[in-house]
């Protein structure tokens, strides 16, 4: 009999996955940033839920840090970046929308397949959400390789990181606080480095289409 806790965990993970799928369906970069902010909000709420039911006070701190960084700071930086490239849209990705969605569906199924042993040995009430978290990781990876705009790829990377956090929270009720904070810092640094890269790409090619980088070979 599923408890309220496990229901909420699964609900949160499926919402996170749905926000991940928006990256494949929408074309405007604004929608990507909004989807990322909402997904992060869902994750921080989910962390609070896990902290409450799992009686792990450290997770509250992690949830607060996560909220500040992923719901407030990074979306704001992304929005500023996106405003500068507002004319850019994800018009012709390497894989078209309909195929991408089917591939995403298959990836989630694959996520179910590979997390099967994990779910089988885990005793945690949150285990049912793990396949969805793995699905989110795979879908975000797919976004990174199938989309052309640098900003989309950055959002894909951030969602990938969200997926990993989700997996950690569901699978182990979160890793120790100090490690978690280290990861946050890494992500922030990575994001800032990518931001500089994007500005450089835009400066050189007047576009954030990464396909332009192929010209560097000659």
């Amino acid at each position, binding site marked *: 009999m599923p408890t*309220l806790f496990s229901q909420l965990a699964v*609900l949160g993970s*499926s919402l996170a996955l*749905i926000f991940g*799928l928006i990256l494949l369906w929408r074309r405007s970069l604004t929608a990507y940033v909004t989807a990322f902010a909402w997904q992060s909000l869902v994750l921080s709420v989910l962390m609070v839920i896990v902290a409450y039911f799992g009686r792990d006070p450290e997770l509250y701190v992690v949830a607060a840090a996560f909220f500040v960084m992923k719901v407030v700071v990074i979306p704001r930086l992304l929005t500023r970046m996106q405003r500068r490239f507002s004319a850019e849209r994800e018009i012709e990705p390497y894989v078209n*929308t309909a195929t991408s*969605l089917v591939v*995403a*569906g298959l990836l989630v199924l694959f996520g179910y397949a590979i997390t099967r042993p994990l779910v089988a040995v885990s005793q945690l009430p949150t285990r049912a959400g793990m396949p*969805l978290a793995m699905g989110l990781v795979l879908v975000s990876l797919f976004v990174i390789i199938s989309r052309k705009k640098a900003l989309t790829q950055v959002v894909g990377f951030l969602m990938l990181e969200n997926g990993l956090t989700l997996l950690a929270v569901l699978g182990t009720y979160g890793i120790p606080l100090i490690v978690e904070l280290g990861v946050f810092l890494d992500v922030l640094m990575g994001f800032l480095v990518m931001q500089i890269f994007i500005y450089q790409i835009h400066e050189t090619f007047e576009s954030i289409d990464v396909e332009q980088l192929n010209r560097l070979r000659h």
Partner: protein
Amino acid sequence: MIGYVVEVVQAALVLLLAPGLVGLVRAMKARLQNRRGAPVWQPYWELWKLFQKEVVISSNASWLFRAAPFVVFASTAAASFLVPVLAVPLPFDAVGDLLVVVYLLLLGTFFLSLAGLDPGSPFGGMGASREMTIAALAEPTLALAIFALALSAGSTNLGQIVARTMTDPASALSPGHLLAFIALFIVTLAETGRLPVDNPATHLELTMIHEAMVLEYSGRYLALIEWAAAVKLLIFFSLLGNLFVPVGVALALTPGTLALAVLSLLVKFVVLAGALALLETRIAKLRLFRVPELLSVSFVLALLAVTSSFLLK
């Protein structure tokens, strides 16, 4: 015996409420757009007027053109017997399950497209081809979305799915239900010709789908088709409301529970109509070539819903 009475009352209620539901959506939409809009009961007057008017039929039309409105109306009305609207379980549950409902609705769509092609007008053909494109993608999604619920209930019988969800209300929060709800909502928009797939309020020939097919119809034939379209919207709303949030559906056939069922049904309709009106005000119509992408979103969601209900059972 009382079961059959309730069944007939339910079908009559569906037929009578349907135009009002369309009127309610229109009125809410008008309010949201700062217009006063027509009163809620306007569609009833429109149907009444159409039934009085004479019928004009193209000389190129065959018997199919005359038969189609009756087939469309009869198949939609028949589906209304099988959908859990007020109470479960009902005697007609034994007659057909969700597959019968899906194919009864598809039968109507099919005949409507044939009727669109029959008089040989270019608009009719255009509308029919578009409708078929959409139906081919929407019908499997519809079946798949309800299958997700059927899997967790262990039966394809709509009445039993509702009864099962009522015994375990927490399952309405499971990912299978959530994903299936979103998928079914998108299918509802596509199947009933609402924005962003089709605009119900326009006769602008380049973008219309449903209106293009019924362009040649007039008088009582048009009334039947419009009425059937309204009933279809109500059937989809009942599926959305009662399969996913089966609060208030009567499990026992007593006057008290039935009154509560009618009341909760009306509340659900008002909420769903409000959501639809809000959505239609917020978004613009999609380009026709993006519609298959929207439907593949809903197909993938339905597929994931089925998988997660299957694996988490």
